[in-house]
């Protein structure tokens, strides 16, 4: 563990040295982090975390991965107490990530809060593949919007919306995005693909926009997890399926799904 520092009031940034994960991880994949015991409190289940950034090895500098997480409960509280330099047991990269359809020239990426980390890998890929990406960064307050610097570094255009000024409101945001991409200029036409990570409403917004523009939508979903590998069957995706057939598992069939409207 190379860096472990607060990001604003609610988040923490974690940089891990790992050549293997950095070089093999796909955009949108995640890790299972085993949380070390913290002052008598033993955390039993590993915590799933999206890979926010992959920074390949350069010369003598080893490859690193960066995560950003919110301190919300017992597990993330205990994780927040791990000192820099400690070895962390991590399993991954896991799951199916985002995948640009062949021929993609432009993409709309949408994330909110720590969900921005789920889709940041797609921004990295866009930069690497020369895809023109626009990323919506949503948050409660401006100081809770993550990913600004990352997008600047990657040369990805951003649209920031917050609850504070009402711009993150679903209808407002939908109208704004339609206005943005319903134009005629090449950079104002509909994106070739929409990639989203975050709360159910954002996924629904993406599905609506996808239907409106007739473009595919890929959505990263969340679920409580135990194994992260596909065998515990704990991470059923929050979708309706035939009750006699098991639905998709977020860890093995996702977290990224080709989606129209995920029924939460």
């Amino acid at each position, binding site marked *: 563990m190379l860096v472990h520092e607060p990001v604003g009031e609610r988040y923490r940034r974690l940089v*891990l040295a*790992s050549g*293997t*994960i950095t070089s*093999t991880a796909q955009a949108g994949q995640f890790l299972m982090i*085993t*949380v070390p015991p913290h002052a008598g*409190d*033993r*955390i*039993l*289940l*590993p915590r799933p975390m999206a890979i926010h950034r992959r920074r390949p090895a350069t010369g003598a500098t080893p490859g690193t991965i960066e995560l950003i997480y919110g301190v919300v409960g*017992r*597990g993330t509280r205990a994780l927040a107490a791990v000192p820099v330099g400690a*070895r*962390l*047991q*991590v*399993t*991954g*990269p*896991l*799951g*199916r990530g985002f995948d640009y359809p062949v021929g993609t020239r432009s993409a709309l990426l949408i994330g909110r809060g720590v969900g921005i980390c789920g889709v940041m890998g797609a921004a990295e890929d866009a930069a690497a593949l020369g895809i023109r990406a626009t990323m919506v960064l949503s948050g409660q307050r401006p100081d809770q919007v993550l990913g600004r610097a990352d997008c600047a570094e990657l040369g990805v255009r951003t649209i920031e919306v917050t609850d504070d000024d009402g711009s993150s409101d679903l209808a407002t945001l939908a109208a704004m995005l339609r206005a943005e991409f319903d134009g005629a200029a090449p950079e104002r036409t509909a994106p070739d693909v929409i990639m989203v990570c975050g709360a159910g409403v954002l996924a629904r917004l993406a599905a609506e926009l996808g239907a409106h523009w007739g473009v595919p939508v890929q959505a990263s979903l969340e*679920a*409580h*997890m*135990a*194994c992260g*590998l*596909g*065998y*515990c*069957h*704990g*991470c*059923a*995706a*929050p*979708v309706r*399926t*035939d*009750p*006699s*057939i*098991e*639905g*998709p598992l977020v*860890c*093995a*069939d996702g977290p990224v*799904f*080709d*989606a*129209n*409207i*995920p*029924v939460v």
Partner: protein
Amino acid sequence: MVAVRADTTFSDARAAFFAAAPDPLDLTGGPAVDLSVRIGSLTLLTPVMPASGCFGPELGALIPVAELGATVTKTVFGSARGGNPVHRLTEIPAGMVNSVGIPSRGPAGYLATLHPRYAAFDVPTIISVGGHRPSEYAPVVAALGENGAAFELNVSCPNLDRNGTDIGSDPAAIREVVAAVRLVTDRPIIVKLPVLVASIADCARAAEEAGADAVCVANSIPAMPLDARTRRPILGNVIGGLSGPSIKPIVLRLVWLASRAVQIPVIACGGVGSVEDALDYFSVGASAVQVGTASFARPFAAVEVARGLRQRCLDAGVGSIRELLELDAAQ
């Protein structure tokens, strides 16, 4: 509607550990240590195996499965089941609660998709079998035929013939299940008993008398975790099974009682995560242990227990766990 991508699953090769794997065992010198245990006609080289539902062939990419005594599959039911609504699991202090609900593709689905991956491991596959009525078990075992090295009957399932109380809490129903299964297989039968029973001794004896080769004590304990903030049930199914460290003192007593009640081996299952836990169970009469919840945070947990048992014997200069415990007790 979600269009799920085609039938791909997790690619094992992608899994990697940051942390170094535990050091392999030093086997140079010392006396011969024999940890083997017999379950009916089956001999396991070490008395450590995973708990049903807490292992999958995916782990083959992470851990040396061959160092375990056996693998144990997730419970297979006669008909296909979808499993329970989300959330299916959560963590509470010292335990986890799951209401996965045992999704299953039935015996044919299991044999087609999962069994080949189990069979590829160099250790016996114990197939866990479930049912909603005592009559449902034998057909599943018959359909699985010679594929199971042994069968573990998960009787912690509501008995739809008897207004939903667990089959395993009723000695008569246990007898019925085991007797029927005995008719369709020569392979060892393990009966995995629930915690919430009036008398674990009566249940274990019913299994033994009907022809079981071992009992597994016990399954997770039904519980109802509430969200601290909203006071609503966390699990989609409202109720789930509590497992992990907090159930160990309860299961220790059950193992102690069961192993005094029957001659067949008792396999302990409940909160095992370390060699110490395993030795605690051996000291109250268990012949083998299963590792469940501990594997999620530490996929190596079961292997560590197996290696640790051998190392303890080597360190003490004894050849078996019994001798190790006698030595401990003598001190």
